[in-house]
């Protein structure tokens, strides 16, 4: 005989009475484990999606607009991809998809798929669509689709001189196949559960048609198969696989795509191991070395060529402006190097004489005198003659600010003529002009296809163009030129390297060689020098300076899915009431069962067991039930999780934005959930047991204690049984005892209780009165101050009312208990008076029902209404009418007449319309619509003045308690201390003591939506975000969150100042994100006009309120889920009422038998019991509903979209269920020979 045997014997003997406990434990466990499995499933699904979108891809080099040689990727054993944004239309134009990814791929790309597609490569003039795009276009193999793709332009669209016509190219292609997830159909480097629109076309075709021949913008590196090639599986892996296989077999787990590294990837140490084996820790020691070896100047879009007409080599770029790192490196490599900046002047004027569109070169000696001042200019003879100028004369030089983009901002500078040079070398050098697209190859100036209108046609000098082409007509100092034309892309168009006699001078430091040299083109002399120079340049340059950096995309993707929204925790929260209800039920049933065994407990105590030992024994018994319940619950959890996933994929889809959620169950979760469920159940049982085992053996041996009046339910211990008085002089022992002395004691205690009850009654009533008064005051204040939409005030008032109602209930029960009006006694009043017999139990029942119904109903007050104050600037829409996103960047200014005309927009149609444009650096959607943890949130750049002037949006929180709103973004202002920022704070933003220019600071101020910061990024205001991607110069991007905007349409993005944005990401041309102000009565018209005009840009406009609704839908859906599951919890809780009834009635069987003996009919007794408990049920629900009614008033009065029907159904269900359980319990308890109970008394 052991304690274990005793526990087992008890479990078996009391099996029937334990059945309810077991069911409760099973239910609670199923819900708890099920909620965790929902988390597993969402996480697992996100991981599946992450792995599906990457296939075997481990790392990727994504250079955006900057293109590198496809050969570089091939040499790195990577798949080259040219990724360009575009739009797609079905052949008949009926269906359209914006923001699609057109991916030029070759056969290497498909080798990265987990499952090879049924084709080796995409045939010419064909396209392969992914499922999402095929569905959107309703396209199938054999159909034709029209793709419009942004052409690759070396010169940014933001440069004034760039051509803006023919930006895009249209391809009519036949759909060759539609690829699924396993065939890389979902390929994307952005973490999002929503499948992208992908169109795969032959790399050769795409690069050729878009002007990017043999170029790529993505290099994708294969994953190394760790298990097959590098490491034997560990015992842990084998065991894990076995468990998973077993779980899959029994249906606990769905088979998923082959993931041979999942086990390792699931643990930190595993990931480290993988990274070590793959050679891919965060810094990729292998790849950068290889990249440094394999890359060429062409990969930085640099070209080193010998000049045909002079004795020099020239470094230039088809991006026109050399990147600053290239300039620095070139000047460092050869100190003889001469930087040159040649730019187009729109007009050179001297008095009435003028000439249009000449090139002007800024350089040092020998092109200009070494001492040329910044306000001096050198003219060639042609220009001097044309303008009739001599040294000492003055002229005006007009030009477009280089990065004014399509706005074509013009500026004018005045110069004094220093000298006139002959039309001969080195001045008559047409190679000084960069290859401006649309200009360089034109035969006539009139044929120029540049990004500006030739407004000075009459002043065009075609004779000069024919004879001298782009030969500069004038020369200024380098510093003067850079002041005029320096821009975010660079301030140098070429670097010239005079080829000296010592061609090997690059290998050792040399002093500048001023002697002009005249080597012949491509002589061995030059070839040697060129080779040396190339080598030196490549050594001095870093690939990262040009965005050539490999990112561990697989690691990032898995991290994003791993750290994504924790649906396990979320559903535990949603199922809270259900779990609590199940626990209460378990506790009630177990306690009930133990109470029935009071004598057994008393016997054990009398035999020398300590209360602790007995509690352990009973708890052991309970633990056995909990373990069994949890085991059964684990099976039920699968169904619960599946039901919740079904809900998330259908009715609650707004919260997750995908129906691709698949069931997953991890062994660790099951084990953890199982342990948690056992612990929760055991804890509930422990709570239930505490009171029971603390009663003395003699009381228990006499049949268990009964609460005599409610106030005397004090805990009894062996020590307290001495009869010592408590602090208030109250007796500490209460028991129903068969002996007379105990009965006498009871009488005494009743009397004492009544005396004490009087003061408590008054205190409780006072508390109720105070709460009622406060609630009414709060409501009065809200109405008087017009705060009728203040959810907090109404929720507070509701909660106070609830407390008041419960306090009054407590007082009422006390009053009823003290009532001695025997004259008014009838069966109904007797029933109600009976509620006072177990006052604490009655009050607990009312409290549970009231609190439950209050919470379930009133949580609706937090539903978000997208229409509330939508036109106000302070609202979540920022007062904007429309939100737009375009596929291709819009460089024109939509707020100016010129910009609108350029886009063919009718000025009248846009009367009263203004736009706040944002630059976009693509990244992860950091809104609540993305379930993944955003690793690299999308960056938006905006002119903060546009938002500040409008006072758009409301700041929920600002850094260090500041209150300067959008001005936080103004980097310079902040550092000047004009803002409220302290010097110390300003110092945090920048390195060094100088005022930093945009792009030079260490930390960039950023603002984001509060929800994005908290949920999608897991950060808080003041935190620094280490952006996963360096900027285009390879510098790390560190952002400090300086402000959080309250729930708004800005969700999903990190917003920084535009000048900071362009300094960091100069290649990101134009604007792709727009907030549009439009007159409220013309929103639809404005939307239609803009959409039509910007169709080729793939512009999609959404009413701001609709976007707000999409975002709000997440929270509202969560609240709805909580209400539904909470309602179910209440329903389950109402079953607990049945248990309470059963306990009450069984305790009073003798008394009821007496009534029977006195001539009452059994039916009357049933009504007596029913009326007593129905009163409790109604009282509880009524208290909760009235209090909740007040709390939800703003919602009812405002949006009016409260799910009244669903809530009424829930409460009705609770009422009916409560009544049914009460009735069943009454009938069950009163069944049998009731009079026997009388005889037993």
């Amino acid at each position, binding site marked *: 005989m052991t304690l274990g045997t005793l526990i087992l014997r*008890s479990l078996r*003997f009391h099996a029937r009475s334990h059945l309810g406990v077991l069911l409760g434990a099973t239910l609670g466990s199923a819900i708890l484990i099920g909620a965790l499995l929902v988390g597993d499933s969402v996480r697992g699904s996100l991981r599946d999606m992450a792995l599906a979108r990457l296939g075997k891809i481990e790392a990727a080099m994504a250079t955006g607009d900057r293109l590198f040689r496809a050969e570089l990727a091939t040499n790195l054993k990577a798949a080259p991809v040219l990724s360009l944004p575009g739009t797609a239309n079905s052949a008949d134009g009926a269906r359209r998809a914006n923001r699609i990814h057109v991916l030029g791929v070759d056969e290497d790309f498909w080798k990265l798929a987990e499952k090879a597609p049924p084709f080796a490569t995409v045939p010419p003039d064909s396209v392969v669509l992914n499922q999402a795009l095929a569905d959107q276009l309703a396209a199938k193999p054999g159909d034709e689709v029209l793709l419009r793709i942004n052409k690759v332009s070396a010169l940014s669209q933001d440069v004034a001189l760039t051509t803006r016509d023919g930006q895009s190219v249209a391809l009519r292609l036949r759909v060759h196949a539609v690829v699924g997830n396993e065939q890389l159909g979902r390929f994307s480097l952005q973490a999002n559960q929503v499948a992208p629109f992908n169109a795969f076309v032959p790399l050769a075709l795409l690069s050729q048609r878009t002007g990017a021949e043999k170029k790529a913008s993505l290099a994708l590196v294969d994953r190394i198969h760790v298990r097959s090639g590098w490491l034997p599986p560990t015992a842990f892996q084998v065991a894990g696989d076995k468990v998973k296989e077993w779980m899959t077999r029994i249906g606990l787990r769905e088979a998923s795509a082959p993931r041979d590294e999942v086990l390792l990837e699931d643990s930190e140490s595993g990931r480290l191991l993988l990274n070590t084996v793959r050679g891919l820790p965060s810094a990729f020691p292998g790849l950068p070395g290889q990249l440094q070896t394999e890359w060429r100047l062409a990969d930085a879009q640099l070209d080193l060529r010998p000049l045909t007409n002079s004795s020099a080599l020239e470094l230039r770029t088809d991006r026109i402006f050399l990147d600053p790192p290239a300039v620095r490196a070139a000047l460092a490599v050869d100190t003889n190097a001469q930087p040159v900046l040649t730019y187009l002047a729109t007009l050179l004027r001297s008095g009435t004489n003028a000439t249009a569109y000449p090139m002007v070169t800024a350089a040092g000696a020998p092109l200009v005198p070494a001492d040329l001042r910044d306000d001096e200019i050198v003219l060639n003879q042609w220009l001097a003659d044309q303008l009739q100028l001599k040294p000492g004369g003055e002229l005006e030089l007009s030009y477009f600010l280089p990065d004014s983009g399509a706005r074509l901002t013009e500026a004018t500078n005045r110069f004094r003529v220093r000298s006139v040079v002959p039309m001969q070398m080195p001045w008559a050098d047409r190679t000084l002009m960069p290859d401006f697209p649309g200009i360089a190859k034109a035969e006539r100036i009139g044929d120029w296809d540049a990004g500006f209108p030739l407004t000075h046609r009459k002043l065009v000098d075609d004779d000069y163009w024919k004879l001298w082409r782009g030969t500069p007509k004038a020369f200024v100092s380098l510093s003067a030129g850079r002041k005029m034309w320096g821009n975010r892309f660079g301030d140098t168009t070429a670097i010239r390297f005079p080829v000296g006699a010592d061609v090997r001078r690059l290998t050792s430091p040399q002093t500048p060689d001023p002697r002009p040299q005249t080597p012949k083109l491509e002589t061995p002399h030059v070839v040697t020098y060129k080779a040396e120079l190339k080598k030196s340049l490549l050594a001095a340059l870093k690939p990262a300076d040009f965005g050539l950096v490999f990112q561990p995309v697989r690691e990032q993707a898995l991290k994003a899915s791993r750290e994504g929204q924790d649906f396990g925790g979320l559903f535990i929260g949603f199922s809270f009431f259900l779990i609590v209800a199940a626990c209460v039920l378990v506790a009630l049933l177990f306690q009930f069962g133990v109470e029935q065994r009071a004598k057994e407990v008393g016997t054990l105590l009398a035999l*020398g067991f300590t209360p602790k*030992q007995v509690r352990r024994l009973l708890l052991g018994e309970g633990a056995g039930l909990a373990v069994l319940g949890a085991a059964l619950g684990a099976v039920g959890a699968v169904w619960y999780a599946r039901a919740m996933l079904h809900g998330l994929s259908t009715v609650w889809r707004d919260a997750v934005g995908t129906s691709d959620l698949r069931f997953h169950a991890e062994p660790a979760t099951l084990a953890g959930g199982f342990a948690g469920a056992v612990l929760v159940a055991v804890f509930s049982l422990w709570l239930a047991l505490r009171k029971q085992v603390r009663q003395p053996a003699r009381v228990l*041996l006499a049949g268990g204690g009964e609460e005599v009046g409610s106030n005397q339910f004090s805990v009894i211990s062996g020590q307290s049984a001495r009869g010592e008085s408590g602090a208030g002089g109250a007796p500490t022992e209460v028991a129903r005892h068969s002996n007379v002395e105990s009965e006498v004691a009871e009488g005494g205690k009743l*009397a004492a209780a009544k005396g004490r009850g009087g003061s408590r009654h008054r205190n409780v009533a006072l508390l109720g009165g105070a709460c009622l008064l406060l609630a009414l005051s709060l409501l009065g204040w809200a109405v008087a101050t017009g705060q009728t939409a203040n959810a907090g005030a109404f929720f507070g008032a509701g909660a106070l009312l609830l407390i008041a109602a419960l306090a009054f209930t407590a007082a009422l029960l006390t009053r009823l208990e003290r009532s001695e009006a025997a004259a008014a006694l009838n069966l109904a009043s007797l029933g109600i008076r009976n509620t006072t017999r177990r006052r604490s139990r009655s009050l607990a029942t009312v409290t549970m029902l009231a609190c439950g119904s209050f919470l379930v109903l009133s949580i609706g007050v937090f539903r978000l209404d997208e229409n509330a104050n939508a036109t106000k600037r302070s609202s979540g829409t920022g007062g904007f009418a429309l939100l737009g996103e375009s596929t291709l960047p819009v460089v024109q200014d939509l707020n100016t007449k010129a910009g609108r005309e350029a886009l063919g927009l009718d000025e009248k149609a846009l009367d009263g319309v203004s736009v706040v444009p944002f630059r976009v650096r693509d990244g992860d959607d950091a809104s609540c619509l993305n379930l993944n943890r955003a690793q690299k949130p999308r960056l938006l750049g905006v002119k903060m003045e546009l938002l500040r002037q409008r006072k758009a949006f409301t700041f929920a929180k600002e850094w260090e308690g500041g209150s300067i709103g959008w001005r936080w973004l103004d980097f310079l202002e902040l550092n000047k201390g004009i803002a409220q920022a302290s010097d110390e704070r300003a110092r945090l933003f920048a390195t060094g003591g100088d005022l930093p220019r945009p792009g030079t600071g260490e930390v960039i101020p950023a603002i984001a939506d509060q929800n994005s910061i908290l949920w999608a990024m897991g950060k808080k205001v003041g935190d620094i975000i280490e952006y996963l991607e360096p900027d285009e110069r390879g510098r790390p991007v560190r952002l400090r969150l300086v402000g959080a905007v309250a729930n708004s349409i800005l969700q999903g993005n990190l917003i920084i100042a535009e000048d900071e944005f362009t300094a960091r990401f100069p290649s990101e041309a134009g604007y792709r994100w727009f907030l549009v102000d439009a007159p409220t009565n013309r929103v639809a018209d404005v939307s239609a006009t803009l959409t039509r005009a910007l169709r080729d840009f793939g512009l999609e406009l959404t009413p701001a309120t609709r976007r707000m609704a999409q975002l709000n839908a997440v929270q509202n859906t969560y609240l709805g889920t909580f209400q539904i599951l909470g309602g179910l919890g209440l329903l389950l809780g109402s079953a607990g009422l049945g248990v309470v009834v059963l306990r009450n009635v069984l305790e009073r069987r003798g008394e009821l038998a007496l009534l029977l003996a006195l001539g009452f009919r059994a039916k009357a007794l049933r009504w007596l019991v029913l009326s007593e408990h129905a009163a409790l049920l109604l009282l509880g629900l009524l208290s909760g509903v009235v209090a909740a009614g007040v709390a939800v008033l703003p919602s009812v009065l405002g949006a009016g979209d409260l799910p009244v029907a669903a809530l009424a159904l829930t409460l009705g269900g609770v009422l009916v269920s409560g009544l049914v359980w009460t009735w069943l319990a009454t009938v069950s308890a009163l069944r049998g020979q009731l009079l026997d109970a009388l005889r037993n008394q």
Partner: protein
Amino acid sequence: MSAPAPLLRLANVTKRYPGAAGGDLPVLRGLSLEVARGETVAIVGPSGCGKSTLLNLIGTLDLPDSGELVLDGQRLDTLDELALAATRNRQIGFIFQSHHLLPQCTVLENVLVPTLASGDTASRAQAMDRAKQLLTRVGLSERMNYRPGQLSGGERQRCAVVRALINQPKLLLADEPTGALDRATADALASLLLDLNREQGTALIVVTHAPELAKRMGRVLELRDGVLEAKLQ
């Protein structure tokens, strides 16, 4: 030569309960009692006189308001809950009017239940032998694997007696042990108790309304007005 120390000594023990009028209702008023080792004592008295209260005090199921309670030289009224439980387990045996056997356990297991409280696993094997021996002694050798529900009232009470003796207590307390039995069975049980008293040397205090049972005890005491008075047999 001094007299041997009594096994049990109660000196000036009082016990009160709160009264209906707000005052206290005294149940035991300075009660004193001494019981020698191996002695048999019957306590009689009218209903409500405090017999069960007295037995509960001796059995450490309740504690006195004042006075001394000494068992085998150790004061019980000053012990903590754990020590009291240990005393109940090792030194006192209880026999109740209702046998209070655990319905889920067999007769043998019921007898062994008190041995589980001590946590002394080493002595459990010996306890098993003793249980079997005692059960054989009381005529339950054929019923060892029966459940209480399968026994007659007398058999259940005999089982309860064996359970009370399993830890070889010095004092056996019986509260109306024959109250629920018919006369013949009650007589047999009384004989058994006395036989075991002799055999085991255990002192026996019986609270009873039954004069026949009381008469068979060595001493009969009547509880009246909260104090014990010797009753002439």
